[in-house]
C-alpha cells in the first residue's frame, strides 16, 4: 500500500448546490433522490435494502467500509442504492469473517461512490431544504451537462418503484413442513423479514408485486404479508386492491413500511411525501397499547396522514414516532390486520420490535 491520490468528484443537487469530494475509484455518473441514513452500523444491509432503490445514500457515520462485506449480511441479491456519498471510505477493512472489501463489493455491483464530502453539511442542507434529486459524478468539469441530465430525472413523488425491485416469479422460503403458511407480496421485501417469519415456524410463498389476491389465496395461506419497498405507495393500485380483498375477508394481515402505507391507502387514508423522511436505526417509537418505548430501524420517505387515521372509525393508532408524532403503527379494530411504518426485522438495527412477528403469528393462530 502506498499513498493513494484520488480523483475529484461532486454531488450536484437539483437546486444547483454542489458538494465537493473525491471518487473512491470508479468513474462515472449516477442519479437519484438524495437521502441520508444515520446508522453507525449495518452499511451492507442498507445498501442492499430494496426500499432504497433509486436513492443516492448519504451515510452520516464518519467511516464506511471498516468491516468489509459478508455474503450473509445482505437484504437482497444486489446493491439497491443508486450511489453512495460518505465522509471517509475504508479501503482497508478488518474482519476475519468477511468475504471481501466494500470497494470490491461496489465494483462487482457497478456502484458509484464518492467520499470526502462534508456529509454533515449535506445532511443539514437536506434537513433544511427537503429531499431532492441529485447526481454524483466524477465529471467535475461538466456541471452544465450534469444539470441538464438531472433535470430529466423524475421526482420521487408519484414514482412507482416496486416493480423494479420485486421478484418476477413467485418463490418459496423456509421449511415447507412448517406449521404456518404465509403469502407475502414482494414490493421490495427484505430478506430478514422472511428469515424472521421462517424462524417462527412459517413457510412463505413470495409473490411478485403485480400478483392478485386470487394468485395469493391459491397458496391457501394462513396469513398475508405486505412488504416494505421503495417509492410512492399511491401508484401501487394492484397492491392496494390485494390489501382490500384480504381485509374484506378479515384474513390475518401484517404490513411493514410500504406495506403499511398500502394498508392505509386501502382504508382510504392518504399518504404524503415527508420533508426528509426517517432513515436510521435509532428512531424512538412508543407503543400506545403497552406504553413502552422501542428503538427502531426506520427507512421511509412517505408516511400516512395522521388526521385521517385518527378520524377513521375502524383504525386505531398503536404506535407513534416520539420525535415528530407521525403514525408509526396501526391496527384495524374490526379486522385481523395491523401494520407498522418501521422495520421490526431490523437488519440493520435493534431487535426491540421483533415481538411484532410474534404478534402476527398469534393473529394467525387466533384467526
Amino acid at each position, binding site marked *: 500500500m502506498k499513498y493513494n491520490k484520488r480523483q475529484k468528484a461532486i454531488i450536484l443537487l437539483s437546486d444547483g448546490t454542489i458538494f465537493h469530494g473525491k471518487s473512491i475509484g470508479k468513474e462515472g455518473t449516477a442519479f437519484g433522490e438524495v437521502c441520508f441514513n444515520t446508522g453507525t452500523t449495518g452499511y451492507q444491509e442498507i445498501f442492499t435494502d430494496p426500499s432504497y432503490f433509486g436513492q443516492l445514500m448519504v451515510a452520516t457515520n464518519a467511516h464506511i467500509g471498516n*468491516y468489509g462485506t459478508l455474503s450473509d449480511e445482505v437484504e437482497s441479491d444486489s446493491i439497491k442504492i443508486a450511489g453512495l456519498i460518505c465522509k471517509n471510505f475504508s479501503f482497508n477493512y*478488518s474482519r476475519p469473517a468477511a468475504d471481501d472489501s466494500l470497494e470490491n463489493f461496489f465494483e462487482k455491483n457497478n456502484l458509484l461512490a464518492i467520499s470526502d464530502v462534508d456529509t454533515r453539511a449535506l445532511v443539514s442542507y437536506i434537513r433544511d431544504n427537503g429531499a431532492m434529486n441529485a447526481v454524483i459524478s466524477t465529471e467535475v468539469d461538466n456541471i452544465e451537462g450534469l444539470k441538464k441530465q438531472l433535470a430529466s430525472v423524475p421526482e420521487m413523488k408519484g414514482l412507482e418503484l416496486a416493480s423494479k425491485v420485486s421478484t418476477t416469479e413467485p418463490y418459496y422460503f423456509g421449511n415447507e413442513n412448517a406449521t404456518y403458511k404465509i403469502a407475502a407480496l414482494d414490493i421490495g421485501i427484505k430478506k430478514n423479514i422472511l428469515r424472521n417469519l421462517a424462524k417462527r415456524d412459517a413457510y412463505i410463498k413470495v409473490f411478485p408485486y403485480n400478483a392478485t389476491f386470487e394468485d395469493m389465496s391459491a397458496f391457501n395461506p394462513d396469513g398475508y404479508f405486505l412488504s416494505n419497498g421503495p417509492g410512492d405507495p399511491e401508484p401501487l393500485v394492484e397492491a392496494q386492491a390485494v390489501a382490500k380483498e384480504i381485509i374484506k375477508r378479515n384474513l390475518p394481515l401484517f404490513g411493514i413500511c410500504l406495506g403499511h402505507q398500502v394498508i392505509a391507502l386501502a382504508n382510504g387514508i392518504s399518504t404524503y411525501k415527508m420533508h426528509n423522511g426517517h432513515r436510521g436505526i*435509532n428512531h424512538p417509537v*412508543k407503543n400506545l397499547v403497552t406504553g413502552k418505548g422501542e*428503538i427502531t430501524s426506520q427507512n421511509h420517505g412517505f408516511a400516512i396522514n395522521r388526521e385521517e387515521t385518527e378520524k377513521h372509525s375502524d383504525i386505531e393508532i398503536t404506535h407513534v414516532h416520539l420525535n415528530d408524532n407521525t403514525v408509526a403503527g396501526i391496527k384495524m379494530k374490526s379486522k385481523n390486520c395491523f401494520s407498522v411504518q418501521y422495520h421490526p426485522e431490523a437488519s440493520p438495527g435493534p431487535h426491540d420490535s421483533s415481538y411484532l412477528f410474534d404478534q402476527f403469528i398469534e393473529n394467525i393462530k387466533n384467526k
Partner: protein
Amino acid sequence: MPKNKTINSVLIIGSGPIIIGQACEFDYSGTQALRSLREDGIETILINSNPATIMTDPTMADHVYLLPLTTKSIVQVLKEHPQIDAVLPTMGGQTALNLCIQADEKGIWKDFGIKLIGVDIDAINITEDREKFRELMLKIGVGMAPQATANSYLKGKEIAQEFGFPLVIRASYTLGGEGASFVHTEDQFDELLTRGLEVSPIHEVMIDKALIGWKEYELELLRDKNDNVVIICTIENMDPMGIHTGDSITVAPAMTLSDTTYQRMRDMAIHMMRSIGDFAGGCNVQFAVSPDENEEIIAIEINPRVSRSSALASKATGYPIAKIAAKLAIGYNLDELSNQITKSTSALFEPTLDYVVVKIPRWNFDKFEGSDRTLGLQMKAVGEVMAIGRSFQEALHKATQSLEIKRNGLGADGKGYKNYDQIIEKLTFASWDRVFVIYDAIQMGIPLSRIHEITKIDMWFLKQYEELYHLEKEISKFTIDTIERDLMLEAKQKGYGDRQIAHMLKCLESQVYKKRDELKIKRVYKLVDTCAAEFKAQTPYYYSTFENEVETPDGKLESINESVVTDKKKVIVLGSGPNRIGQGIEFDYCCVHGVLAASECGYETIMINCNPETVSTDFDIADKLYFEPVFWEHIYDIIRHEKPEGVIVQLGGQTALKLAEKLDRYGIKIIGTTYKSLDLAEDRGSFSKLLQENNIPYPEFDVATTADEALAIADVLNFPILVRPSYVLGGQGMKIVINKKELEEHVVDLLRTMPDNKLLLDHYLDGAIEAEADAICDGENVYIIGIMEHIEPCGIHSGDSNATLPPFNLGEFVMQQIKDHTKKIALALNTVGLINIQFAIKDDMVYIIEANPRASRTVPFIAKAYKEPYVNYATKVMLGEKKVTDFNFNPQLEGYAIKQPVFSFNKFPNVNKKLGPEMKSTGESILFIDSLKDDEFYNLYSRRKMYLSK
C-alpha cells in the same frame, strides 16, 4: 409513570478525594444530578469530603456536607434532615456504592425510612460479587470466561492448576482494578495471589482464564421505571483485552463491529441490565469479542451506576447521562423527557455520531519512581483527554496533541524511537507511549502483521496508522512552495498539526499557517448534536475539523462552519487539560467559576478544554464550548474566529498559563495579570530582584544551566540544596540534595530530560515551617482570602501537605510578616486576579519560596472552608468589572479546616511512599475540626515527619 410525588428530598453521595480509578468524572455526574433534581423542585442534600469539587459549592445543593464519607457522617446528615426521602448513590462511583451498602448492612436506611433510588442493593451486590454475577450470567445464557473464586491461598493454587496460564487475578470489592494482575507463569502466581487476597476487603479473589487479545467494548445504558432501555454509546477499546479500560485508548462509536455482532451485544447488554434488578438508572456493561470468524461475545462486567465511561459517553455523544439518570431515578420515563441537545426530540432514543471520538489516558509514571510502567489490569492513568474529529485519524491526532507531553501528534516531530529492539519491546509491554511507538514501528518498516501479532490491536486501526505514514511520506516530497492545496487539506483533515507539516516540509510553523491561510484551508467548527444533523440542535458544543467546500448555485465556494459568531463581547477561558498530579480538579473548579462570573458580568463565555471528566466541558456551563486540545494552533484559530476581548489564563493551571507568552506575542489580550508579570514571577532572577527591592527575604539561591555551574553554586549556598527546574508542574523534578554527588547526579538527570532548562538551586531551610497564602488583587488593593500553615515541615510539596486554615501555631509577628509580604508582592507584580505565595518560616523570619500569580490548588479549599465565592470575585476583578473594595468579605469558619492530601500509592506496589518536594498525591479531602484538641489533628501532627524523605 411520571415523577414520583413521594420523593421531595434526596441525599446524594459524592465520591470523595480523587484517586486513580476515580477522578473528577464524578464531580461532573454529581453536579449534573444535583442540577437535574433541583430543576424538578427537589431538595438536595450532598455529602462529599472533596473540597475541590463544583458539586460541593453552596449554590449546587440545598445543603452541602463536607464530611468524611462514613456511615457516621450519613447518620449525622439524616438526623439533621429528617425530611430526606431517598438516597441516590449512583453518582459517586464505587465509593458511594460501597458506603451505601455499608449503611444498608447497618440498617441505617431502614431506620430513617430512606428509599434507595437509581439502583437497588441486590444489583450492587450481584455486580460486585463476581461469583454471584457469574452464576446469574450463566443462568440467563450470557457467556463468561472460565473463572473461579478463591478465598484462600490454597484454593487459589488449585484453580491455577486446573485452568493453566495465563490467568487473571482480581480482588473482590475493589476499585480501578486494584489488586488485579495477569499471571503468565507459575513463579509470579504466589506473590500476586497473596496481594490480591490482601487488598480485597473480604479476602477474596477471582481467578479468570485470561482473554488476552480479545476485542473489548463498552456499552452505556439507561433504563426507566417502565423498563425502557436505550444504549447511549458504544465504545471500542483500541487496546484489546489485557489493558484496563481506564488505561486503554478508546474510540466511539465502535469502529470494527458489524451490525449483526453489535445487535447481539446490544441484546445481551439489555438482558443483563434487566436481570440484575428492577431499577431505573444507568449501567455500564463491558464485553469481549473473540477476534476470529466466530465473533463470540463474552460479558466482562456490569456496573449499575454512572462511571468514567459514562462521563466520556456523555461528552462523546452530547447525551447527558447523569442528568437523565437522575430524572429516571425520581420516576420519570424516558419518553417523558426531551433530548437535551435538540430540545425538540425525545430522550428515548439512541444518539448517533457523525464524527469519531478518541480518548487517550494520561499517565504520570514520572511521579512514581521505580513503578512498573507496563499497562495491565490495574488502572494507572491519572487523567484522560478526549478529542473529536471527522475521522479516526483526525481524532487520534487531536488527542495526542491534547496530552501536553511535548508531542505534536503522531510522527513528524523527530521524537520517534529508531531502535528496532526498543520498538519491539515497547510494543510488547504497553506503556504511556505505545500510541506513538506504533507509528515508529511502521516507519521502521515492521510489518503490520507483526505489530498486530504483538499488540493484538485490530488491523483496521493499524491500517489507519499506515495511511498516516504514507501521507507523511508523500508530503515530505514537497516544500512549502510546491505543496498543492489538496494534499495540504488532506493533511489537515487527518489531524496533522501545522508544526508537523512544517517538519515534513522543512519550514516554520508560521509559514504553514500562512500558506493554509493563502490556500483558504480554514478550520471549521461542527456541532455535537446527538443526531448526526438529522435535527436542528440548540446546544453550542463544537469541535473543529477541515472540510471540502460547498458551492452555492451562484458560485460561492466555502467550507461550512456551524459556529456562528455573535456580536456580544466575549471572553475565552482556557481549561486545564487532562488531570495529572499537581493539576487536577481544583483548576476545573476555578475555570467553571470563572465562566459563570464572566457570564454574570454580561460576557459571552467561551470554554476551551479537552478533559472529558470535567464540569467545564459540560455543554451548558459556558455559552460556547469548544472541545478542543489546549494546544496553540487550535486555540489561536478559535481566537481568530471568535475575536474575544481577551483570554483568561490564570484559572486553568500551568496548561493555560504556559500559553500566555504566545498569546502576548500574537497581541492577544490576557485578562487580568499581564504576561509580563506572570513571567516576572516565574523568572527567579528578576523575581528575587523584586523581593530585594521590597525588602522581603528569600532563601539564598542561584541559577545553573550545567552541572559544573551547579557544583560551583553549591560552594556558596551550602547544603542542603533544593534543586528545581523552571516552568514545571507539581514540583516535577524537584529534589533536596545533601552533598555534591547527589547534586551532580540530579542535575545531570534533569538536563538530560529537560535540556536547556534553567535550574534553580535554593538553600534549603532545614526544619522550617511552611505556610502559604492566597489573595485577590486588583492592582491597587489586596485582599488575602486565606493563610494556611502546613502541618508537615518545609520540604514536602505543598500539595502533599496537610494544610490548616487558619494557621495553628504561627505568632502574631509571623502572621504580620506573611500579610505584609503577600500584599507587597501582589502589588509589585501588578497582579490583577489571584495570587498564591508560599513561605518558609524559620526562627520567626518569613522567607518567600515562590509566588504564582494565578489560581492555586488551595483556592477552592479556602472558598469551601470560608463559604465565599472567591473565584467569582477574582474573575470580576480580572475583567475590571469590580475592585477588591467592592466586595463585602465575610469568611465564616469556626475552628479549623484541614486540607488533607490523598495518595494512590496502592496502585504502585513497589514505589517508595516517601514524600518530598515533588508532589505525589492525586486528591484531597477537607476536614473541619473545632479545636486543636481534636484527635484527628493530633494524629496528623504526631505523624508529620513520618514520610519525609531525607
